[in-house]
């Protein structure tokens, strides 16, 4: 009986929030041909399974060409006939087994079909509610082995979900599933920003009648006020060492950049433009702030040393440019470009100032890089509702994540978190 309950729970856990449909367009050029055999033990499962989560994780990056096993169904290395898989460079096989006490054992192997060797093997036991987490870890291992870069499938994203007048600050898996509400208000919430260790989120809320900045712990959900001066307090961003935050305050007139220690002390003003200076974010070396300013007459991206001083204009194309975010290697930054009445996600090289638009245009806002720099998360719109989307950092593969409820906005990809 307990065993049966376990199976039902297992199915329920995996099909929960299967209302989020995923639509992928485009394809990368040098995709790795990989085949993923549905794990044994998953045949009777409804909805999402470990192998389907792994498959959609890999597809989303645009770096893999998923080849249908076409009836071939090995689950152990001894069952693999290497000659049967021409054109397949890597094969994923595995088993899922329900154990006593409602736990599940998952075994998986990644095989190099060219060299005919095993690249990774993993066996874990876990509770049913951890199956998606295990699937993401499996996808991370496969991604890292085959591309040399760490996978980001186990990382989390934050965003704001609006339904009527109700706003929720939400943290979810990188694929949009597993929503967890951190804060629900009847006033707007904006600009979630992850601490570098992923343990806290800073954000803007209007619960005090105007925009003020809060910092909240994910583990305890305890929160504290970071800035609540007269006027607007907004646009929090953490320094790479987590010791200070950049903020935007209007207490001295127009929006200007400030720095404050993470304990709320030692507030210092960084810009003195009298224009709108906003959306600061630290470069990964911690030396500069990228930010949006209309000091030149239109909203553009600028860079200023963290200690203040002369700001350098970085963007010159498009009517307006907003919301800069540097890549994890610090070589490029993504931003939202408004031109000809549409918003595009664009990327620019910091060294040679080469700009490239990554999306075909619409209401594409608020981009942020995945912590491995391979994907960019952004907000867009579908049938009048705000939704999440990703684009590969080369612009080749785009994916929309359509949630069933609410209007999704202000997404921000979280950091790698030590497991």
């Amino acid at each position, binding site marked *: 009986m307990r065993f049966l309950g376990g199976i039902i729970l297992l199915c329920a856990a995996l099909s929960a929030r299967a209302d989020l449909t995923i639509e992928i367009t485009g394809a990368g050029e040098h995709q790795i041909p990989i085949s993923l055999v549905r794990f044994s033990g998953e045949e009777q499962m409804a909805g999402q399974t470990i192998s389907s989560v792994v498959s959609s994780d890999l597809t989303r990056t645009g770096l893999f060409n998923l080849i249908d096993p076409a009836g071939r169904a090995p689950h152990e290395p001894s069952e693999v006939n290497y000659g049967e898989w021409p054109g397949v460079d890597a094969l994923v096989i595995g088993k899922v087994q329900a154990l006593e006490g409602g736990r599940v054992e998952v075994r998986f192997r990644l095989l190099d079909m060219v060299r005919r060797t095993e690249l990774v093997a993993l066996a874990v036991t876990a509770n049913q509610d951890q199956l998606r987490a295990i699937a993401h870890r499996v996808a991370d291992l496969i991604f890292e082995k085959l591309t040399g870069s760490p996978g980001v499938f186990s990382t989390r994203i934050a965003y704001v979900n609006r339904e009527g007048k109700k706003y929720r600050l939400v943290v979810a898996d990188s694929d949009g599933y597993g929503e967890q509400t951190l804060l629900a208000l009847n006033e707007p919430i904006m600009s979630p920003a992850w601490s570098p260790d992923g343990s806290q989120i800073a954000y803007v809320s209007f619960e005090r009648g*105007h925009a003020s900045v809060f910092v909240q712990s994910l583990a305890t959900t305890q929160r504290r006020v970071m800035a609540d001066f007269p*006027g*607007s307090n907004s646009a929090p961003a953490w320094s790479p060492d987590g010791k200070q935050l950049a903020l*935007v305050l209007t207490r001295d007139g127009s929006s200007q950049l400030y720095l404050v220690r993470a304990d709320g002390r030692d507030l210092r003003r960084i810009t003195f433009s009298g224009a709108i200076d906003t*959306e600061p974010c630290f470069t990964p070396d911690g030396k500069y702030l990228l930010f949006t300013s209309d000091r030149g007459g239109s909203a553009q991206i600028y860079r200023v040393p963290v200690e203040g001083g002369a700001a350098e204009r970085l963007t010159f194309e498009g009517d*307006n440019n907003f919301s800069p975010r540097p890549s994890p290697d610090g070589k490029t930054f993504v931003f939202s470009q408004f031109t000809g009445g549409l918003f595009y996600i664009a990327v620019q090289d910091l060294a040679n100032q080469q700009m490239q638009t990554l999306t075909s245009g619409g209401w594409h*806002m608020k981009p942020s890089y995945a912590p491995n720099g391979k994907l960019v998360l952004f907000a867009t719109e579908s049938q009048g509702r705000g939704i999440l989307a990703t684009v590969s950092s080369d612009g080749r593969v785009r994916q929309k994540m359509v949630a069933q409820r609410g209007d999704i906005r202000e997404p921000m990809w979280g950091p790698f978190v030590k497991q």
Partner: protein
Amino acid sequence: MKRIILSVVLVNLLAACASEAPKEAVTEPAAPAAEAAAPVAAPAETAQTATEPVAATETAPQVRSVYFPFDVDAVQEADRAAVQEHGAYLAKNSDAKVRVEGNCDERGSSEYNLGLGQRRANNVKKMLVLSGAKASQIQTISFGKEKSRCAEHNEACWSQNRRADIVYTSGK
């Protein structure tokens, strides 16, 4: 009871329509505000047919919203008189207080619009002070694009959202 509430909503809607068509509303002389204080009793026509210009009324001026072009934060020429009337009223009524709320259309990031809305509110405040109000009578806030009146992607909607509202928090 339901009917009364409905009619209140309707009157408010009509009043809103009358004053919200951005440019027409501000070129009309300010209507007496007695009705505005008690919208239930005020048929919408009264607000529209009143033609007497009022310099500094006993009650606060009627026009409570000023509108802005795209990405502009300066109070427009056409709206100056309306703002100045509020300034004069605040100067005469030292116990009156206002909150100026800046709003923006959706064409910009949330944070940029928060900054733009703040500048719109700040500029209305400056003009109120130049017209005799004390800075301490005026609070400014920005809602950016977070509390828009409408959500359509067209100029008819955007022009409604590029706005600063003068809200009396006491002494209206």
